[in-house]
């Protein structure tokens, strides 16, 4: 009896000794990570509450290991190096956040869907895939999950309303299939110092009859490109435009990332035009009906041909000679060389690169403040009020529902919410410059530093930010269709075919593929062919040929004032 009592006492003591440091350790961990997650948009007390919720909700999953994957950008590397560690220390769930190439992520997600083998428990996959996910019925419906099975692991602090663009990850019915983790827009980039130079301004006014400023439309962009090309500024020949044209998959993104909708190819509607969106694909009642004009699509409509023609013409006339042989990745940082006046289509991820921010960079002043600014993308002559203006995409958390179930699903969902929590979001923005929350961009911390970002923060705070959107749900199979773009556009760049022929070939190939696709939900069913005239005479997209437009600019500083109102 005495022996049993002694054993019980000893066990209790050992248990207490083990449990006590455990508790202290976990609380220490929260304190430690709160210090790490500064600056923050919420107070330390609020951070503590949120992190404690994670600790408590994760208790049943302690000791589990999960795998997630994302492409190689600074934001995700920070998640892999810092947030994974923090998450493990706070919740006891070990995460391997694998960082691989963007193409490899798409490849793996497709393979996991095909084989139903759990390669990863959760993906950060571009919201451009939303049309594919909803039609393949591959992604876990997060809206349903949060209400049902995943109720206990859904943070009360998640605050979906606070996300900048949660609609990117939603299907036609507003169900959240993907949750944004990082996003970046594609904006107009220009040399503010050159555009405000009184000599250039006077010269421009005299030559073109209107003020040099941020171009509102392509006609003005073209004039400015012509104006600057060939000038000698600071001892070097400068160019009025920058782009890329190498025959590579990235050439496709140049187009699928909203170039056609900027030209005005699609219909009105936000975030994406309906029934015809930026890829020129017509969708009726969620069913893709065709990309050729003959089937009611607009991929080879006059607007699409105009978009392609201008792209090639500008690159040949106004871009540096090396542009045509560059890929997307190579062309991205080149405006930082200081010999480019403007770029119609600049991904803002590059703008956090030292090439654009270093005090020694040719595009910053001696204090490292940018001499460049970003502004809204100018639109083409087919564009109409009410259409999207440009591109931005959100790398979004996606759980594949067939291969990831039960506890793995719950742990993965916790991890996704942790990476997007208010506790870490502002710090994550400071590291990777890819905001996802309104509370981040509206934080006091960033309000004080707005000028350091060349207008990026101002853009995200502005009322127009929601007009920059991703590919949207009309694209029934992103990987398969995106592949067709670069091959066809490349043949127009090299002059093998005319822009009209290139877009005809592309639209027909898209129809051909869509005609063969058999998808789980809303599978494409092509419209019967009718004459081009029939469709061009219908209201909306595809739109008939239009004449030239009046060039229009606006002063940057006034535009900023409007954004701030």
């Amino acid at each position: 009896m005495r022996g049993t009592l002694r054993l019980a006492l000893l066990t209790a003591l050992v248990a207490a000794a083990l449990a006590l440091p455990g508790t202290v350790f976990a609380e220490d961990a929260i304190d430690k990570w709160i210090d790490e997650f500064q600056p923050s948009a919420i107070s330390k007390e609020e951070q503590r509450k949120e992190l404690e919720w994670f600790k408590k909700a994760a208790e049943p999953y302690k000791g589990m290991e999960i795998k997630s994957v994302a492409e190689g950008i600074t934001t995700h590397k920070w998640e892999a190096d810092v947030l994974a560690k923090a998450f493990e220390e706070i919740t006891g769930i070990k995460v391997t956040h694998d960082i691989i190439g963007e193409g490899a992520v798409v490849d793996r997600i497709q393979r996991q869907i095909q084989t139903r083998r759990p390669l990863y428990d959760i993906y950060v996959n571009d919201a451009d895939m939303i049309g594919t996910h909803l039609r393949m019925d591959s992604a876990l419906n997060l809206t349903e999950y949060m209400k049902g099975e995943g109720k206990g692991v859904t943070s009360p602090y998640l605050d979906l309303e606070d996300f900048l663009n949660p609609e990117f990850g939603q299907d036609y019915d507003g169900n959240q299939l993907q949750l944004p983790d990082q996003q970046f827009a594609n904006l107009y980039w220009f040399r503010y110092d050159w555009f405000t130079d009184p000599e250039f301004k006077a010269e421009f006014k005299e030559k073109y009859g209107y003020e040099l400023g941020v171009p509102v439309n392509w006609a003005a962009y073209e004039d400015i490109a012509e104006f600057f090309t060939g000038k000698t500024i600071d001892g070097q020949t400068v160019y009025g435009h920058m782009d890329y044209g190498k025959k590579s998959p990235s050439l496709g993104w140049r187009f699928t990332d909203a170039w056609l909708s900027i030209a005005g190819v699609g219909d009105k509607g936000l975030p994406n035009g309906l029934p015809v969106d930026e890829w020129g694909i017509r969708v009726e009642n969620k069913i893709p009906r065709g990309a050729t004009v003959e089937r009611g699509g607009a991929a080879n409509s006059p607007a699409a041909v105009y978009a392609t023609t201008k792209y090639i013409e500008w690159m040949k006339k106004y871009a540096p000679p090396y542009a045509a042989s560059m890929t997307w990745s190579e062309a991205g940082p080149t405006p930082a060389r200081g010999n480019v006046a403007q770029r119609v289509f600049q991904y803002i991820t590059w703008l956090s690169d030292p090439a654009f921010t270093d005090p020694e960079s040719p595009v910053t002043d001696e204090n490292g403040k940018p001499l460049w600014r970003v502004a809204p993308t100018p639109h083409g002559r087919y564009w109409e009020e009410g259409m999207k203006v440009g591109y931005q995409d959100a790398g979004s958390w996606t759980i594949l529902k067939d291969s990831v179930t039960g506890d793995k699903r719950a742990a993965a969902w916790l991890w996704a919410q942790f990476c997007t929590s208010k506790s870490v979001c502002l710090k994550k923005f400071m590291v990777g410059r890819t905001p996802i929350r309104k509370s981040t961009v509206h934080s006091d911390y960033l309000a004080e530093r707005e000028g350091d970002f060349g207008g990026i923060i101002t853009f995200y705070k502005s009322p127009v930010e929601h007009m920059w959107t991703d590919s949207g749900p009309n694209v029934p199979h992103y990987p398969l269709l995106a592949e067709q773009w670069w091959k066809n556009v490349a043949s127009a760049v090299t002059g093998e075919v005319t822009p009209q022929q290139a877009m005809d070939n592309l639209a027909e190939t898209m129809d051909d593929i869509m005609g063969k696709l058999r998808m789980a939900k809303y599978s494409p069913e092509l419209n019967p062919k009718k004459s081009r005239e029939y469709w061009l005479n219908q209201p909306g997209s595809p739109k008939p040929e239009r004449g030239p437009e009046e060039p229009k600019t606006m002063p940057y500083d006034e535009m900023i004032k409007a954004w701030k109102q």
Partner: protein
Amino acid sequence: MRKRSIALIVYFVLLFIPIYWMVITSLKTDNEILKELTFFPKEITFKHYMEIFTSEVWRNSFINSLTYVFLNVIMTLVAAIPGAYAFSRWNFRGSHHLFFWLLTNRMAPAAVFMIPFTELYYILHIYDTVWAVALAHCLINIPLAIWILEGFMSGIPREIDETAFIDGYSFPRFFRKIFLPLIGPGIGVTAFFCFTFSWVELILAQALTVTNAKPVVVTLTVGIGAEGVKWGLLAAAGFLTIIPGAVVVYFVRNYMAKGFALGRV
């Protein structure tokens, strides 16, 4: 003689340029790489190498690659040496067809095997291990190894085998004591070709690994992302990646030409 020396020097300089470029790029800052063309780093930095050496992902990737390449070379040789001996010494029904058929495996693109291998290795519970890649590379390396080794073996007169048997050697003893040393250079050069293929192969290595066995070729692809190309990091990793190959080349350099001719020189 002098002309020849000059030509050789020019040739080596030309060969050396890409390697030189890679080395200096790996020592430049990203800003310098993007900003201007410099033939020597203005400001030498080791940060790209530091990033690789201090990162567990990079370190593990190198170890994973070396491990599966080593396993693959061993498995390939163990299978291919007897196979090649059979083709070189014995004529059996269909042996010529079978010998040719071996090469057809090399004609199929690696991507064809991605899904079946994923399935198979999942069932065998070796998906995402170095064994998965090592085995998958055998599909391509064993036929190649048999072709190279058969060439080397056919160059050795059959009389040697016969003499050994007359002298009372058992087959295994003959193989070990006499035959293997004779085809030693062939084995070296075969190992080199298998090493080279396995070391640089990306499609299968990427398809069959996730995180546990991720090889260096896959980690290298991370340098190209939505923020442009991390030239410095890629150059540093590229330089480190060619070192093992260079070491192997050093040891088999005298047999390379024979290897390229599949042993038939």
